[in-house]
């Protein structure tokens, strides 16, 4: 030991080698990863493999070991992963187009198969994306446009999931679900004509609202006229001849003196002494 102390660089070198060996022996498997141990390229065992329903912290993750420099380690993600597909156009049975963004969530349940068939998560993604696109197009292309808007309602997405899962299984993955993130009309003519349709529909609505308003107003007025007429009739009909006299008096006053608001034009009256009003003039 003292000889070693006297040769620090040698000591450091030995320590370094020991550390290297240790690092290559000990494997710290985190909860989020699965590990494939290969010996001379041949897979021997899998650490922390995903098991459905197993609670977190059950055997697998944690400290493990391997033979240094002989056993190789391949990490495979254990978590729920995501594959995205953007801007895929699908055509409905009634020849309308829709631009769809979709995603699928999956988990690698058989890391070994995934490693053999796809090598890495990126490779798996590369295999899944085109399949997701074609599954979607197949399923959605069987339907009229109206039902494309809410494909969840008719179990379309479940079909897509099943179809994609068939592919994913070959790569040791399991599709948890497939969902449509966006379903938009393609820009250009389809979108513009949809806008045009919305606009004309609104214009039509505006017109009908206005017409409806005018109609209601007219009915209200007519009803008011009728009501007033009835009120007058009910009252005046008690004595038509008195009404005639009463109304005449009001009318004279109104025409010659005004209603108190506007001043009537000056009037000149030429009266005969024989008139009813002046009949007492003669003094009989």
């Amino acid at each position, binding site marked *: 030991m003292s000889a070693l102390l006297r040769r620090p660089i040698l000591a450091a070198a030995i320590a370094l080698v020991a550390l290297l060996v240790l690092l290559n022996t000990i494997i710290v498997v985190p909860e989020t990863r699965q590990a494939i141990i290969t010996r001379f390229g041949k897979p021997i065992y899998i650490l922390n493999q995903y098991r459905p329903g197993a609670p977190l*912290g059950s055997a697998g993750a944690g400290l493990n070991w391997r033979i240094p420099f002989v056993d190789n380690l391949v990490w495979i993600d254990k978590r729920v992963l995501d594959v995205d597909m953007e801007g895929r156009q699908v055509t409905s049975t009634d020849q309308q187009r829709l631009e769809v963004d979709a995603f699928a969530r999956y988990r690698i349940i058989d890391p070994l198969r995934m490693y053999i068939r796809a090598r890495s998560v990126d490779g798996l993604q590369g295999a899944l994306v085109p399949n997701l696109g074609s599954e979607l197009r197949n399923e959605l292309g069987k339907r009229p446009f109206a039902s494309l808007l809410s494909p969840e309602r008719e179990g379309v997405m479940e079909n897509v999931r099943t179809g994609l899962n068939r592919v994913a299984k070959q790569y040791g993955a399991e599709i948890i679900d497939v969902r449509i993130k966006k379903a938009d009309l393609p820009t250009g003519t389809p979108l513009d004509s949809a806008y045009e349709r919305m606009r004309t529909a609104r214009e039509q609505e505006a017109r009908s609202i206005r017409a409806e308003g005018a109609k209601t107003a007219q009915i209200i007025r007519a009803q008011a006229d009728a009501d007033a007429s009835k009120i007058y009739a009910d009252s005046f009909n008690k004595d038509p001849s008195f009404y005639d006299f009463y109304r005449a008096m009001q009318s004279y006053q109104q025409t010659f003196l005004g209603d108190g608001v506007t001043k009537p*034009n000056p009037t000149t009256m030429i009266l005969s002494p024989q008139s009813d009003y002046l009949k007492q003039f003669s003094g009989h």
Partner: protein
Amino acid sequence: MTRISWRLPLRLPTRLFADGKGPWGGGEPDDTPAAKPSPPRSGPNTPPPTVTEGPWGDQAPRRRPDSRFGNGGALDDLLRRGRQRFGGGGPRDPNSTSLRPDGSIIGWAIAALVLLWLVFTSMHLIAPQERGVVTRFGRYVSTLSPGVGITLPSPIDKVRKIDVEKIQTIDLGSEESETLMLTGDQNIIDIAYQVRFNIRSPEQYLFELAQPDETIRQVAESVMRAAIANVTLREAMGDKRGEIENRVQDEMQRVLDGYRSGVLVQGVAIKQADPPGAVNDAFKEVSAAQQQAQSYTNQARAYALQLTAKAQGEAVAFDKVYGQYKLAPEVTRKRMYYETMERVLTGVDKTIVDAPGVNSYQALPPVLRSLPKEPAK
């Protein structure tokens, strides 16, 4: 061997190699490390400035320029200190005796450091809103509740504190940019909404999803799109907003539970649900039309009210007068006649003509007066 080490400083401007050689090469020929440097040490005293000096004696005079220009000085110091620690230096350097720490002090210091390390890495203060997720060599062990949690020290156990009470928000769509969605009646709506969530199960949140936040965002988008596609534009903009919010919240929770995300969706709020900018004018036109229709009916109602009130007033007035008239018809009639005539004739110009011999030449001043003045002149 010694010769080589002596010559080396001659050829190499930095004495790095020579110094490095010191503890290795120097110690080798005679087993005692202190024995070797003594001859060169006595050397410099006799012929002071010769460059052929050994590396040890040479140090003192040459150190100053070196340390000033940085090339070898700091490294020299470091190496020297290293040598002292490994016992290679010995008492040759007069400074080394004061720098060399006592072994027991080092021991105590290391013990104290280890103790501090243990205390700081095995005791964890978890705030009331936090949970501590403990992993032992990467494997999930337990979740610490608020308070002081004890774990194994650091390289073995690791604790990640996760805030489980904080309501996090994700905003989708904004007032500036349009987020368009198709409604069930194939109209387009511009929507902006916010999802509030917190972490219910920190260990699941940490370990089950590759990109938790991105996942929540995508699920929100997808679920909202599905909800909007199930209602009409009018419903989405108006009375069904609350229903949509609830439906999206429930559905999001269901999907996220399917991923074992450990997230609890607290709520979804639709901040904006408007027609897209391209057709906004047409929608404004509709509300303008609604206003207009409203004002039509308002005017009509006002008219109706006025008319009925007038009719009622007049009817009541007539009834009252008629009631009096019935009591004394002849007198009342005459009285009303004279009173009216009085009022009427007071206010007008009167000419009384004894008909039938009306003088046609008679000037009628009131008639003239009633004519406009300008043309009369």
